[in-house]
């Protein structure tokens, strides 16, 4: 069973990385880019079991460790 976690900066929080990537893409000649935001994507391979329980457990992992909830939001999907 696999959990797919997206961790993104909250709205309004400065994203220095996204800003620098945006700038660099422009430098490379890519146009039509209005904004870039960088987040994390974490995949966790879990021992098979109950999907609902797994989702709650992974959310708990995000709260405790994976996300910095002062500045980041997270979302969890459980595959398979």
């Amino acid at each position, binding site marked *: 069973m696999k959990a797919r976690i997206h961790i993104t900066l909250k709205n309004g929080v400065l994203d*220095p*990385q996204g800003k*620098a*990537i945006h700038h*660099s893409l422009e430098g*490379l000649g890519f146009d039509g880019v209005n904004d870039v935001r*960088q987040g994390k994507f974490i995949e966790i391979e879990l021992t098979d079991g109950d999907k609902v329980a797994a989702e709650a457990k992974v959310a708990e992992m995000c709260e405790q460790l994976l996300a910095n909830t002062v500045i980041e939001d997270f979302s969890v999907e459980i595959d398979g």
Partner: protein
Amino acid sequence: MTAAVIVFPGSNCDRDVAVSLEAALGHAPIMAWHGDSTLPDVDLIVVPGGFSYGDYLRSGAMAANSPIMREVIARANGGTPVLGICNGFQVLTECGLLPGVLMRNASLKFVCRDVDLRVERADTVFTSQYTKDQVIRIPVAHHDGNYFTDPETHKALEDNGQVAFRYCAADGSITDDANPNGSLANIAGILNTAGNVLGMMPHPERLADPLLGGLDGAPMFSALAEAIAA
């Protein structure tokens, strides 16, 4: 007998290496701006340490795409010696002049300290004033120095003798304890197949003045000065 130091936004060891080059060469290197697409005729190119583009996205990735790097690649392919230190090493791997990548340190922490290095190749323009298997002490200061490559590339590196330096214990033995960042086979620096491009995580320019704690980095700069004077 001139050297160029490439300056990217966020480079911060450019002045440090210029000081070492000036001491060895007797005159200041040219400081070349990342946005330029041409480079004057030089006998040595140094890609310095620092945090080009903040090390955002991946260390060295954005710098590797800057206009001047096209010129650096062309010169390297034409045989000009190119030395990449720390962030410079990361830039050289990102732009394809050297194989492999420098990943986040295994500790996940920035590490700044003196490490022992074993000289694996003393027959290059960079290392001719060291002796093979000599142990030298030079500082590292990086967050992404964990060298990695696939097994075939690693085998090729070893078979071709492209490993220039390895992290070692004080007696020269290659141990896990001596590895500050988790690098594959304790690799601290590698050469390209032609031997004219060297990338290394440790900072020789930080130990080229006795006041700063030692002189083990100085032979690299005097070797280069001698080679390009010849």
